């Protein structure tokens, strides 16, 4: 049995590699590639499920990579069947989930709280827009990297004083930054375009080698949305993969020790200031990446998006999803993607006047209420509640 298990691991990896190559090859020719990729996804899923326990303990990084690949394949496959507006919502949700991942790491792993992640998101968004306006030909991956770097730099600048602060002081300082951010933007209006913000010079379109997927006879608007959605999903997938590894790494474990008992952490030789700055930088870099992606999705950026309200929304989403967890960021992203539709559904089905005061404030009432209820009754959000329930089910004696 053990021998068999050992043999399964490399075979699963080999299978996954073959799948990726086949998917890429078919993608460049026809849409049949989509159908084929589904069949192969099922194959990976089977291989993955059989070898899960061994793979998880022996090669955790490979297991995470396979899981990410599987998730990406399924998500991208689904986007081909959704309407343009659903895809647009999904893309925003994917961008938001990256931001949530950063906050989840900062708050959940190192115990710091930030009310300024909306502003860090804005740093990335505006860097992306300004860069695209000056260097229109830069490939998308490179522009995203520049946005990440700018977010990390601002995170470092604010993270240095933050290392000396505890909970409420830090929350207040990041709040002040979030409130100041819109004023900072208007002070540099020659760069940031003032109140009206910036437009990207060109819409991002799919490169030629993906023609089979994105230019097969549908309208250009639909294919552009589809392509951007898939880019957002892939970027989010990569972000999730890196974060999952970071959570499990030595850094991630030392962060959790700091959160639970900072004195013990110092005694075993962890440098508290350094760990806190690192957590801050990672979180703001992730926020900047999410913001940059949002600029690409909207094809424009406006300063009013990056108000203090956005930081509060980010905090609500990660608390509802499950703070300090990776799945919580995914749940929060999905909630964000569909919250507008759900709220307009509630408005129409309760017979509220859609232009009335109550309907326009429903978003705040529901999110604020959920934030309070979650923190009081399920402090680890949906992800924590599901995990708790799952453990109770499994530990129940048979019969």
């Amino acid at each position: 049995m053990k021998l068999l298990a050992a043999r399964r691991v490399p075979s699963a990896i080999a299978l996954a590699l073959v799948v990726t190559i086949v998917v890429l090859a078919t993608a460049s020719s026809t849409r049949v590639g989509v159908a084929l990729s589904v069949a192969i996804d099922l194959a990976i899923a089977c291989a993955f499920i059989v070898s899960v326990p061994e793979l998880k303990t022996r090669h955790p990084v490979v297991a995470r990579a396979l899981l990410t690949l599987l998730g990406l394949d399924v998500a991208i496959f689904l986007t081909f069947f959704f309407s343009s507006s659903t895809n647009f919502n999904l893309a925003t949700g994917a961008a938001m989930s990256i931001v949530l991942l950063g906050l989840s790491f900062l708050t959940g792993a190192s115990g710091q709280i930030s009310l300024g992640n909306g502003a860090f998101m804005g740093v990335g968004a505006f860097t992306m827009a300004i860069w695209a306006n000056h260097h229109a030909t830069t490939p998308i991956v490179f522009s995203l990297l520049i946005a990440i770097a700018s977010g990390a730099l601002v995170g470092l600048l604010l993270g240095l004083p933050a290392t000396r602060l505890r909970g409420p002081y830090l929350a207040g300082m990041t709040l002040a930054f979030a409130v100041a951010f819109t004023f900072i933007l208007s002070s540099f209006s020659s760069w940031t375009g003032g109140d009206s913000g910036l437009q990207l010079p060109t819409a991002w379109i799919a490169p030629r080698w993906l023609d089979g997927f994105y230019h097969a006879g549908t309208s250009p608007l639909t294919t552009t949305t589809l392509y951007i959605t898939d880019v957002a999903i892939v970027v989010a997938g990569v972000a999730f993969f890196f974060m999952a590894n970071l959570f499990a790494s030595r850094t991630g474990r030392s962060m959790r020790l700091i959160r639970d008992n900072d004195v013990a952490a110092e005694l075993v030789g962890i440098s508290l200031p350094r760990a806190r700055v690192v957590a801050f930088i990672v979180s703001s870099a992730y926020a900047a990446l999410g913001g940059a992606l949002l600029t690409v999705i909207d094809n424009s950026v406006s300063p009013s998006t990056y108000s203090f309200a956005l930081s509060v929304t980010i905090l609500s989403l990660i608390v509802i999803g499950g703070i300090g967890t990776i799945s919580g960021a995914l749940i929060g992203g999905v909630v964000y993607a569909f919250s507008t539709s759900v709220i307009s559904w509630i408005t129409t089905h309760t017979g509220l006047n859609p232009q009335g005061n109550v309907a326009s404030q429903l978003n705040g009432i529901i999110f604020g209420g959920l934030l309070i209820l979650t923190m009081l009754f399920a402090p680890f959000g949906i992800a924590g509640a599901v995990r708790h329930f799952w453990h109770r089910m499994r530990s129940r004696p048979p019969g």
Partner: protein
Amino acid sequence: MDPFLTSRVVTDILGGLTNGVTFGLVALSLVLIWRSTGVLNFAQGAMPMFATYVGFALLSYHFGYWACVAACVIAGLMLGGLTERILVRRLYGKPEINPIVVMVGFLIVLEAVAAAIWSSTPRSLPSPFSSIHWQLAGKPFALSPFTVYEIVTAVLVMALVAALFRFTKLGLQLRASALAPEVSRLLGVRVGRLLTLGWMLSTAVGVITAILVSTNFFSGLTPTVMDGIFAYGFIAAAIGGLESPIGAIVAGVLLGIVNQFVTDYVNQNAVIMVALAMLVVSLMVRPSGVFTKSTQRRV
């Protein structure tokens, strides 16, 4: 008349003082709650805003300004007490982040509910005093009857709070239950009730601030009227030290004056950036505030 009184510097100082006392009041109300319950109340702007809307609803029943003010304060006392009993009481002894998140949620809910009931268009409140500035030898002076009312009220509230804590038995009990809740309980102090009282008191101080701010001719009363004031009040409280009421007030007034100078000599946009820079620098130099004695933090 002396041209000194209408000079640019004096105008800025007096104008800054008018704003500064409101920052100082918010900072004071934050410190009151922080010292007694260890919670940084992020809804400290929104709760008074809500109580002010409730109190000034009496205007449509032909009540006068002062009756509305009294109603606002009563609404504030009730809202503060209920919040402590229903929401905050469940959070004592939980990780630091829980009360922060809950109070941020409460902030969102209060602002959304206020906008849903009363709409977010500014509502102008009647002012008991004229806000037309006095003239000195043909030049405008920095103060008006209304700003004098603002400053006098703020100083009066601060003095009342100080007197309550220093000279009354109730104040002594409040201080004792904040400092050593267990010992106070053993000595027969009803600590639970006093915590509720602390929240009521702090919200009432906030309500006075909200009334002063929203009676202002320019802003009026809106659901988000206290957002900016709260940010400055927090910055003042953090610079002065969350443990020190005097520090909070002094820092608030100074912050108001600095803001006025920055507005006058640089521009409006730079104000919050300068305030943020002051916060960052003061926190780097003295993380627990300029006016507090450094103490070992509890593990």
